[in-house]
């Protein structure tokens, strides 16, 4: 055996992981739970928002407009009310997310010379639902208007050839149906890699300190680098297995594509692990108990999740927060893995992120190794 000391350390660590139900649960169950929770529940997709309609016109034209709304699956016309007060109450009670008021004379106006108007009332308490509802309501309404205008022109004998002066064509690349899971699954991989490796590494070191075994290890001929590698190698292997697990589950359950090279994804995940392992080791040098280690890691994890673009797009953040986000390696990794998975581009497309992440990884590991000396004071 070339390095039996290192091998013995890694083997010991694996035995401990396999025999500790809590660690095992953390490693096996949490990734799947997070994937299911965030994949299914934490979705921003807006579908079937219940709508209340107060149709004061009840003309063929108003029915046609309602059909247009019904056809898009953003809304479901759940309530047909006869007073404005009823409509207001449904929105107040949260039973309807939107209300549509069609004034009397809508049909007459639409065929006359006066512009017809309808009123949309949107519950803005959930901004993401409201924003989607607003744009869908406007878009469908405009389309309806264009259709009426076309019919009117055709009737008055002006040939239109179906063409408007300006037509905007849109193509959505990489995620044409705008599935949130395409955005979330790569993010979950980043989060799991970060959480598992930093928490478990910190705990594994602190546990040795609590039990007094670290003192016993230090006075053996083990070299400091062997101690560091022996601690992080098992968790690196586990985290990479978790990555594959989440990739496969994301593909099976949510159809998230892996368009880039799997090898490249795993290799760059390995580089990212240097940063989270470094943070875990650093946390272990300042924490005396497993609880302290857990809290220390959490303190780095929460800002990392919010400022890395995991939940919220970075572009929408105030400038100072955007600048702070450069301090979190997770930011680089999320961009890398989202780009590689969804766009399938080469490493060249993300090289600045790869470079920044590598620098962070090496710096954190170097710092952790320096602090991880074979001495107690």
């Amino acid at each position, binding site marked *: 055996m070339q390095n039996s000391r290192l*091998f013995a350390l890694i083997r010991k660590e694996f035995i401990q992981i396999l025999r500790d139900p809590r660690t095992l649960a953390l490693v096996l169950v949490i990734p799947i739970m997070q994937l299911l929770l965030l994949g299914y529940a934490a979705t921003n997709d807006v579908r079937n928002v219940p709508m209340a309609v107060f149709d004061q016109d009840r003309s063929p034209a108003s029915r046609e407009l309602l059909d247009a709304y019904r056809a898009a699956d953003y809304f479901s016309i759940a309530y047909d009310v006869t007073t404005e007060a009823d409509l207001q109450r449904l929105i107040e009670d949260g039973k309807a997310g939107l209300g549509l008021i069609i004034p009397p004379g809508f049909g007459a106006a639409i065929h006359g010379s006066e512009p017809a108007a309808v009123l949309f009332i949107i519950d803005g308490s959930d901004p993401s639902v409201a924003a989607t509802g607003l744009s869908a309501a406007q878009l469908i309404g405009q389309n309806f208007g264009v259709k009426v205008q076309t019919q009117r022109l055709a009737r008055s004998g002006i040939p239109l050839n179906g063409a408007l002066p300006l037509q905007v064509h849109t193509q959505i690349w990489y995620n044409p149906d705008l599935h949130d899971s395409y955005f979330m699954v790569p993010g979950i991989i980043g989060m799991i890699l970060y959480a598992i490796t930093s928490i478990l590494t910190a705990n594994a070191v602190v546990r040795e300190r609590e039990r007094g075994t670290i003192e016993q290890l230090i006075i053996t001929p083990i070299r400091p680098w062997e101690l560091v590698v022996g601690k992080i190698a098992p968790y690196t292997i586990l985290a990479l297995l978790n990555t594959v697990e989440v990739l496969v589950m994301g593909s099976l359950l949510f159809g998230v594509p892996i368009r880039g090279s799997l090898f490249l994804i795993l290799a760059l995940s390995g580089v990212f692990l240097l940063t989270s392992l470094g943070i875990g080791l650093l946390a272990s040098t300042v924490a005396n108990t497993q609880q302290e280690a857990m809290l220390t890691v959490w303190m780095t994890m929460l800002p990392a999740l919010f400022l890395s673009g995991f939940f919220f797009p970075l572009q929408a953040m105030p400038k100072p927060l955007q600048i702070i986000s450069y301090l979190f390696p997770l930011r680089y990794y999320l961009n890398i893995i989202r780009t590689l998975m969804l766009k399938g581009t080469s490493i060249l497309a993300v090289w600045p992120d790869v470079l920044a992440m590598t620098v962070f990884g090496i710096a954190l590991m170097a710092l952790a190794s320096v602090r991880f000396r074979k001495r107690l004071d």
Partner: protein
Amino acid sequence: MADAVIRTEALTKMFGEFTAVDRVSFEVHTGEVVGYLGPNGSGKTTTIRMLLGLLRPSSGTARVLGRDVAVETEAIRAQVGYMSQKFALYDDLSVWENIEFYATVYGEHDKQHLAQTLERLGLSGLRSERAGALPVGWRQRLALAIAIVHRPRLLILDEPTSGVDPIARRTFWDLIYELADEGMTAFVTTHYMDEAEYCQRVGIMREGKLLAMDSPTRLKQTALKGKAWDVAAKDVLGALAALETMAGVSRAGLAGDHLRVIAETSVDGPALVARLDGAGVVGGRAEAVEPGLEDVFLALVG
């Protein structure tokens, strides 16, 4: 002396303003079993940590096996076995996995030697038991097995018997003497007075200072100014009040149902009884006894 296994000179460790070990100088020679007696917080563990290179001395020097602990730390560690009071075992590993792990780390690959070590400590039947499930006496033996598995020349034991029953303690000391017979040197800290009596030489620590270091017998001769007496009386507290103030008595204290009195040689048994009679304490009896290390400790500290 050339064969000093441990030699410290004015070894000192400060933690900020607090002096944990204060200019301690002593020597331990090959094959000796030396005890280091003192209450908790007297600097015993800090001394050991400096000998192992776990803490850097603030001043003074320590040489172990002829090497400076601050310089040749790794070379020293390879030849020293260490057992801490926490019994540094991996609870979720079996007895065999524990000893195998430490042996491999020390480069000891001879499985037969491991098996013999377990055999010698009576652990053969427990090979596949989880260390965490063992009673404390067996955990102590496993910790000792781990400390000696790489055949060290010096064994440093930090309160190895805390929490262990008296019979297991006695067996443990027999093992240490067996090892010493084979040429291993042992340096053992303890806060048990009776245990310190087993040692060939004992150092007495208090508040970071090494007050004395010698064989128990010589300590009793030199540190105690006078003789030890057990004094019994019906009214023990009355007797205590009478003897505490008696000329020539250096110390009187309660010891169970009687008093332990240290008095100058000029004060004899009849004199002690006469003092009790004079103070109106009836039924007094005085008996000359062998002093213990506790008497030495109290004399040195007082």
